[in-house]
């Protein structure tokens, strides 16, 4: 599978998953579920909201990456860069999601430590992609 296809497939599926999560969160709101809405679980609500927002946004980023590869002639990503983008955009929102599942008073669960891991993977991936794209766009 080409890099472009891999990002497009990843992007659209994660977009589906995190939009579904958003719908789930709306449902929790709709039925006023205390497990999600009570003041003492405020951190859970924040973590889930961040997971939904980041997951959706990063899905769009992956779609954008896939389309950019197709549009810009000669532009492609190395395997490790592509992997960093794909895994980073999974690890970061999943960190938020799992961190919100098991909380400690005002703190999220231990899984929240996946967030900075995913964040650094994304930074690396986006930085390398920007550099490579700049090379290709040089007049």
């Amino acid at each position: 599978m080409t890099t472009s296809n891999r990002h497009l497939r990843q992007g659209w599926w994660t977009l589906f998953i995190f939009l579904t999560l958003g719908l789930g969160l709306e449902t929790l709101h709709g039925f006023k579920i205390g497990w999600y809405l009570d003041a003492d679980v405020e951190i859970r609500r924040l973590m889930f909201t961040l997971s939904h927002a980041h997951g959706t946004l990063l899905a769009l980023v992956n779609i954008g990456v896939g389309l950019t590869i197709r549009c810009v002639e000669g532009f492609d990503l190395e395997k490790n860069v592509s992997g960093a983008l794909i895994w980073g955009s999974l690890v970061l929102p999943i960190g938020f999601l799992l961190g919100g599942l098991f909380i400690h008073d005002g703190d999220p669960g231990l899984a929240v430590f996946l967030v900075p891991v995913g964040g650094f993977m994304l930074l690396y991936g986006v930085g390398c992609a920007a550099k490579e794209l700049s090379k290709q766009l040089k007049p």
Partner: protein
Amino acid sequence: MTDLSTPPNPVKRKYFPSSWAGRCKLISIIWGLLLVGGWLFNTNWKSETPANRPIQTLKEDYSSAVTCRSCHPGNYASWHASYHRTMTQVASKQTTASDMDGLELTDDGTDYRIDLVGDSYFVRSKMEGRAESEFSEPREIVLLTGSHNLQVYWLETGKQRTMEQFPLGYFIAEKKWAPIEQTFLVPPSAKQVSSRGEWNAGCINCHVTVGRSQPVGDRVFDSSVSDFGIACEACHAGGREHIERNRDPLHRFSLHLSDKKDQTIANPANMDGPTASLVCGQCHSIWSFNNAAAASKLDTEGAAYRPGDANMELRTVVQPFSEDSATRHETLKEYGTSFWSDGQIRVTGRELNGTMASPCFKGGEFSCLSCHDLHPDKTDEKSLASWAKDHQMGVGMNTDQACLQCHEALAVNIPEHTHHVSSSSGSRCYNCHMPHSSYGLMRAIRSHQITSPTVRESIDHGRPNACNLCHLDETLAWTADKLNEWYGHDIPALEQDDHELSAGAKWILKGDAGQRALIVWAMGWAPAKRASGYEWFYPYLIIQLNDPYAAVRFVSWKSLKSLPGFYDFSYDYTITDDAKQKAACDQAYWNWWLKVRDSRHVYQEKTVLQPSGSFRQDTFQRLLKERDNREIYLIE
């Protein structure tokens, strides 16, 4: 000459620096602008430190409740819903319980007018009946205390941060203004001479978190507090170290993932019974300063006590239970009528005195938190508002479960222990072991000294026993027989009246003001109405509308309103004119006699009533003559 037919060459502007040095410079400028913007945004240019009331200044290790919110939103929310938070508030349109704009009140020969200016209320006063032009200069209502039953207002005095009490308080449920001296059980002759500095010198000790009176002259104060109301750090001690230490996420997660307790903050839930109880008892007790130097230190520095300490440092809980009768007598003398003559506390708000004297307390594990949750449990399905109104009881703790959590064996066969059927209110642990024999907030309150009912407590100390607080129609002799038959109590020597007259009727007619208040309250209490039959309560509650004590009149009115035919009964208990009071009584009496009374009902002789329901005048008058008219002050 300029050729206007051709446009000039466009100048290529560089919006983004091409060199790394330039980019860094640009980023630095943006960051700088953001920082300045943030600082400007966070600075409240309008706020000025008020000079006419106590202010919030943090003390040493204190950091205020708002800081706790970010990490403990649930606990913050439950505290926010509690009446502890609103015990003292800065007065404003939002915090007062009623709209007072344009309100006109009269008390003790003075007319008052309250007006809203901006967000604040201002009071003007003049001698009653004088012209509008004689109103005094307006004074701002700067602070208020209470938000549950009664709201009391404090005025600026022009003497630094010293305040003076507005002479009328507002009953929230009743939507009624009343002179302050009629909001406590005090003799009708009691009159407040001056309340200037009273809040600063007295109320500040308990109605805020770490208050410092800071006297600067004769009844002039420069008072400050760590938090208005009873906030997080009143129970958890200063949180600054806790906050600093827990900024480190690794430290926090090491605590989350282990059984270790956070040593940087006090948590009553982790303390032994007496230590945890003292956290509540620092306010909910009758205490005295250890000496004059301690009082002075508290005035200037605030309480030295920190939750978790084994004693109150500068203060001591007063317990008049000394074996030495002279010492006990002296203590009781000093604290007036706040205690029954056996040393049991009889006012509310001082629950630790009762709790400490309870047998349960001696085990070392029992504490206020055995029954009360200061933050509701996750399994508590009540709303925060209901939990707050329900005295912050733990889940199931307003049932027998409160006692059965330790006394498990009794759960097997409750009627065997209570001699009442399981569903009877006589089988509820609270009703026998924590009866409504304390008074405060214009009603009877459950005693927090856990005891078993005896007839001796009634004949020796005048305290209505639990049995007769429900069986108001029965005699003390009846109770003595039952306690003898069921529990083997000795039968004490009793007066003739105690063999012949209902204990409830006798206490109302002959008792002191405190006893009368308890009995008229019990007459509005559903279990007593069921056990005693409420038909005979009417004439008693009606005559008590003419009681010399305003508080007794108030409680009688409330109980009367709980009886059929009087649900909408309107009566102004604050009237001090005896003729008007008697007229209101007469009207209520005839209303009962002609419209409400069931003429077929046969009233019992022991209730000092004729079979028709009129008073047995000879006994009625004799008991009234024998009434205990000593002055009673029950100030919670």
